[in-house]
């Protein structure tokens, strides 16, 4: 065997190890969610959907999913809108303090979530806005907008700067050019940002835990179940959350990738 193929074998092995490291816990959790034994032990028992049935028999869990759905969809809409506006401002205008503007816009995800949650609670409680569903929405919008902005900004960086001028030149007003040219051009990025922000909001625990009050989201209820008992229900609900957010993230990725392929085909 040549040194080169030995090296490539080593590399492959390394990649497999990294993926195992990342996915084993999740896979384990999934395996035990369909295992009949009450405790995660080997050898495994038989296949069952019992833990999923138990979880969905609990009205609190249904409530949590309902609240999480409302929150993540509202957050996705608002954060994508704000993200788009921020990205467009950056694309279109030059002004003094633009660097400051951009770094402030991108700041929220760099703040530790516990600090963010605490700060949000302190503020919202003071203005009597804590403990409601919209409190979670407001906090998550702050957290998610930078992600939406980053995705849309990347798309705007690829636009032919003449495109918008061409629309004006053909008789489109500023608003019309935005609607007819900028938004359609950013379409895939906007859809992708929507999925991504929905996923981030759906998964987020710390901030939601602080500001949600009695309106528990799915991650918050997971902790509650975990504190109460330790049966594989937790694996079941964990698997559902994982599949939901992975679907959203993969969707976001696919939309962006299709866009990139189109781009290559268009490239002059």
């Amino acid at each position, binding site marked *: 065997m040549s040194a080169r193929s030995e090296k490539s074998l080593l590399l492959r092995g390394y990649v497999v190890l990294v993926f195992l490291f990342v996915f084993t816990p999740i896979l384990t959790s999934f395996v035990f969610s369909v295992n009949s034994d009450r405790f995660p032990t080997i050898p495994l028992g038989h296949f069952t959907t019992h833990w999923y049935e138990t979880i969905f028999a609990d009205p609190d869990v249904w409530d949590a999913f309902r609240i999480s759905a409302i929150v993540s969809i509202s957050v996705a809409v608002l954060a994508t809108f704000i993200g788009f506006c921020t990205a467009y401002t950056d694309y279109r205008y030059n002004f003094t303090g633009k660097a400051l503007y951009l770094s402030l816009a991108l700041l929220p995800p760099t703040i530790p979530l516990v600090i963010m949650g605490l700060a949000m609670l302190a503020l919202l409680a003071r203005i009597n806005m804590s403990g409601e569903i919209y409190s979670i929405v407001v906090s998550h919008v702050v957290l998610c907008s930078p992600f939406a902005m980053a995705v849309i900004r990347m798309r705007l960086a690829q636009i032919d700067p003449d495109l918008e001028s061409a629309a004006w030149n053909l008789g489109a007003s500023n608003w019309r050019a935005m609607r*007819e040219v900028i938004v359609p*051009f950013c379409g895939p990025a906007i859809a992708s940002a929507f999925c991504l922000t929905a996923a981030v909001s759906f998964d987020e625990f710390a901030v939601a835990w602080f500001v949600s009050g009695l309106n528990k989201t799915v991650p918050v209820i997971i902790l509650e179940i975990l504190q109460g008992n330790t049966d594989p229900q937790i694996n079941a609900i964990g698997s559902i959350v994982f599949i939901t957010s992975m679907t959203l993230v993969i969707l976001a990725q696919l939309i962006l990738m299709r866009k990139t392929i189109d781009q290559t085909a268009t490239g002059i």
Partner: protein
Amino acid sequence: MNEPSATRPLVSFDGVSKRYGSVVAVHTMNLEIYEGEFLALMGPSGCGKTTSLRMLAGLEEPSEGEIRLEGRRINEISSIERDTPMVWQSLALFPFLNVQKNVEFGLKMRAIPAEERQQRARKWLERMEILELADRDISQLSGGQRQRVALARSLVTEPRILLLDEPLSALDANLVVRMQGVLARLQKELGITFVYVTHSQSEAFAMSDRVVIMSQGRIEQIGSPKAIYRSPASRFVADFVGANNILTGSVSDSTERLEIRTAVGEFSCARNTDVSFNRGDTLDMVISADLVQISMENPNVQNSLRCRFISEEFVGSIVTIFAELDDGSDFKVQTRQRDLANMALEEGTVFFASWNDADAHLIDGGST
């Protein structure tokens, strides 16, 4: 052919300047563009030609002066309200719309009903010979087809003036020549004004009625391609256009013919320019490379020069010879390949260049 002087100007630039901070992009420009003419704005990059075009399109506002369209001041009128469509260097076709929808765009913005929009777009697609591509995506088109879509999109509103910003620069050489033909024919058939920005002499000269040569924000010369080619008004134009040799000298005798003394010899010149010269005046003598004859022996005529061969550039039937004069300056000769067949030229070979005294063009106030 169009007779510009017979009609009133469609567009006037009246002392127009454009400044970006301390940088002057266009410097007090005065230009009249006539109804139905094909006008080329030509110059090296950064000469202000594109800025001038963008001011006309309403995408930049002049810092000073007035731009008039059909006699009306348009400085403050936004691009949206001017009917001055532009064909962009990047073409700027909308990648998310198909060909038909791209062409319909201008009509849609003018709130033309869908059915009429469709008909008018199809009419222009047919005219540009791309009707069968109506449902294609932009990404599926070739460079030449995109060009035609861009033209159809700009012309669909039936404007009186079309602005073109180096639209052929992305095409390969063969296609450029074909599209030049398409553009020139289109302009004649439509009878509307084309203002064409380019840095390419062949594009400008092949299509335009008049050429405006710009440099560093100023107009250097306005004239027909032939006038600009044969009688450049300034040293810049002589350098920029064609393949010219420029010898700087002073008039040593102006009694009968002009005798001109330069660093590489004394030459005589017919009085063939509008400018009159007196003894002692400095001037630039421009000798077009294609009007020079070469020989191995000294031809013993008044206007001949000793040259040392450096290199040659062979482009099909025409050869450009690069040589050095006695004072170290460059000299170019263009000749036919077959005329060189029996001359053994290699680096350092001495040969003689000569020209008729009526073929030298004189520019006043030569530089030193």
